[in-house]
């Protein structure tokens, strides 16, 4: 018997692609949002913070249900553009972005809060444009926050199950990820295969968290 079947390998590949794209989207969307949350004096802040944290407490099926409706043929996209993203890889990425959002936004937000506005103002006064100041001053000082955000966002996306099943179904090669593969294996009584994939996920998750804690210990707050 092969250690990982072809189906398992394609699920692994889908999982890695999904997690990478989700983290990439979240870093692009999350950086300005986390920055705004860290520094705004707006009274909307607690509302936005609560909305961002919602996926932590919400059952994934609830989140998945609403996203499924929104991406389906009767959702806003389906009606206006005749675009149905439910049960597609793109739809899965959109759902994962919402699902993993707090795990990327929150580390970034606390990193930006710790950096404060002082270095930014100093950079502006030395003629650095806002973008220049962000790249050369803020992001290196907030490096640890970025590492945490990337690793946690990636790992959390790899571990999602409920949302994937609701929005993506489990179409091999397209929307079947490792966590749903385990479910399928168990359902048809392939316990040996379920063991292999589960053990892989277990070891992977442990290594990821180990990396986070080691980097947080080793990495100076300000990498030079």
């Amino acid at each position: 018997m092969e250690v990982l079947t072809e189906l398992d390998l394609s699920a692994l590949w889908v999982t890695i692609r999904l997690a990478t794209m989700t983290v990439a989207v979240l870093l692009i969307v999350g950086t300005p949002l986390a920055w705004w949350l860290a520094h705004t004096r707006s009274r909307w802040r607690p509302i936005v913070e609560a909305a961002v944290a919602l996926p932590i407490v919400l059952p994934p099926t609830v989140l998945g249900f609403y996203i499924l409706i929104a991406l389906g043929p009767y959702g806003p996209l389906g009606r206006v553009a005749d675009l149905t993203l439910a049960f597609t890889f793109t739809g899965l990425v959109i759902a994962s972005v919402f699902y993993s959002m707090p795990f990327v936004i929150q580390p970034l937000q606390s990193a930006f809060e710790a950096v404060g506005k002082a270095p930014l103002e100093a950079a502006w006064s030395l003629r650095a444009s806002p973008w220049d100041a962000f790249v050369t001053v803020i992001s290196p000082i907030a490096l640890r926050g970025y590492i945490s955000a990337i690793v946690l966002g990636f790992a959390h996306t790899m571990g999602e199950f409920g949302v994937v099943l609701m929005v993506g179904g489990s179409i091999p090669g397209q929307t079947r990820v490792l966590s749903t593969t385990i479910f399928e294996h168990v359902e048809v009584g392939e316990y040996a295969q379920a063991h292999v994939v589960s053990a892989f996920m277990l070891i992977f998750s442990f290594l990821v968290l180990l990396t986070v804690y080691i980097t947080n210990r080793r990495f100076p707050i300000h990498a030079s």
Partner: protein
Amino acid sequence: MSRLRACFGVQFPAFHLNVEMDVPMSGITAIFGPSGSGKTTLLRCLAGLERAPQGFLQVGDEVWQDEKVGLCRPLSQRPIGYVFQEPRLFPHYNVRANLLYGYKRVPSEERRIAMEQVGAHRIGAVLDAPVAAHEAEYGLTRLECHGQSLFVPPQAVAVGQVMRVHILSSDVSVVIGRTGCPTSVLNVLEATIIEIREMDQASVDVRLDIRAPLVASITRKSLITLGLKPGQRVFAHIKVVALNEELKACSTGDWAKKPQAPRMSVGEISSSAE
């Protein structure tokens, strides 16, 4: 005659500021007032760090802020210098990269100083001083320096161990009386002026004798104000000393087991944060 005209109204929860000013662009304008009266807020508005909702700012012929038309030039496009109230070094850069940060972003034709001029004037003295005592009460280590005392942050070395002390001329200043001016500088040493050497337009080097050579770098203006001459008895204020790591490392005894103290010792306790 070009002038700076500004009008700001800022509302904070516990504070509001209304300012209208019209001052000449030439010379030096001082702003004074009791603490909390809004001096910093005004400067932040002028710099563009704070955006007054109904602000107006004209510098010479250029309008930098006019909220009636929604104009506010960002700080990075205002050719000004802003000295913050606390140090704002970039912690992820070394000293050189910190200095270069602004330098690189100013167009070369606007630069008034070359990078080579920075830190070119680095001369100083090297002294070997044995540890005289560990003053636990003050949390300091006292070094014996040719009959005088030099206090440094606690060192993990045994009494009698010789430490190599580096003192840059830019970290030494000269005063005439010991009690004349109150100071937070910890190390005040008696010294005799040996020689005064003119360095450039602005600064002079004063070679001092503390039964060992020491150099102080002072401005020409203080030289004239103080009327310093060779042979004169003065006091040297030593603001920063650096201790040699290698000599410390070859020490033995109980003190060597204690954690290493910071390499850069700052005589002025108030500024010893690293």
